């Protein structure tokens, strides 16, 4: 069997969810920072939103407050709206330039 302190460490609690959410969020941020494909950047943003949702639900459960779950719905709705508009923009851009690599769109600069 595993040593007790390790088991204690592995017992799932709020912090586990928070750590997981933090990881996913950071990965999403990294994706936003480095990816060149606009659509993948949008995906990374979705990933960040999902990470936040996980936080909300975890807090809702461990804080015994259902408001967190309600909040998730709003996040989802906004994410859906964001995705649809973002993709529509991507489609429009692709139609015009045959390209969604954002490094090709750096005309607006100081």
């Amino acid at each position: 069997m595993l040593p007790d302190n390790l088991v204690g460490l592995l017992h799932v609690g709020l912090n586990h969810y928070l750590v997981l959410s933090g990881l996913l969020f950071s990965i999403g941020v990294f994706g936003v920072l480095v990816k060149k494909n606009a659509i993948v950047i949008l995906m990374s943003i979705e990933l960040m939103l999902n990470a936040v949702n996980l936080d909300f639900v975890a807090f809702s459960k461990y804080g015994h407050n259902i408001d967190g779950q309600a909040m998730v719905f709003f996040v989802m709705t906004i994410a859906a709206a964001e995705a649809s508009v973002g993709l529509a923009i991507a489609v429009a851009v692709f139609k015009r330039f045959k390209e969604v690599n954002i490094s090709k769109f750096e005309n607006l600069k100081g």
Partner: protein
Amino acid sequence: MALTSEDILFHAFAAVATISAILVVFLSNPIYSALFLALTMSVLSIFYFMLNAPFVAVAQLTVYAGAVMVLFIMVVMLFDLKREHEDVLKISPVMIAKIIGAALLCGFLVGVSWLGMSANQNNPSTVVAPQTMAKDLDKTKPVVAMADKPENPDEDLTAAEQNNLVDVKGAPETAKKDVPTKETRLSPDEFGSTASLSKKLFSKYVFAFEAVSLLLLVAIVGAVALAKSRGGTHHVAR
């Protein structure tokens, strides 16, 4: 003291989620990215089930995995971007800065999440896995089972919550207002139920609900208009 099956499930799925999230970013084919993102979202929905939020879980599946990601995949397939190769890890000063930034954020979030909860870690009653806890709660009085000393609800509502939810120091008053006391805590049945959630949505958050529905309408119109347009205001540079 031994690991419960929920613990094992959590760690397994957490690994799946993390790895697939990493693959989303590191794979160069956007289709694979999208599919792995869908996988991540599905796994998250499993976590929601484990967190007594079944309705959120299925909503996550329907909305994210079933609709949003399908949309992404359709767009990617239409563009046929599979041959695009990008050098994710080309070493340049900016790239190093980006890596450092993301790593800092990651370290910070994980560190705070973990350390902020260490007080909580010593309190075994809150460490029980969700389902087990739900069972415990069924057997005994919910409040007593939740924590053996629930006199001070703030105590097991953890430093991290106070840190993460309310990270402005001036605001603990408002934070405390929302912290459930003995009376307002819902029984586990009620807690997970869709009815209690929908009551919240249609009473306390009804305005936000309506506002969000309006937002959706606007987004639909906007998306249709954008996608139908010829695209852009300036001419194609050939």
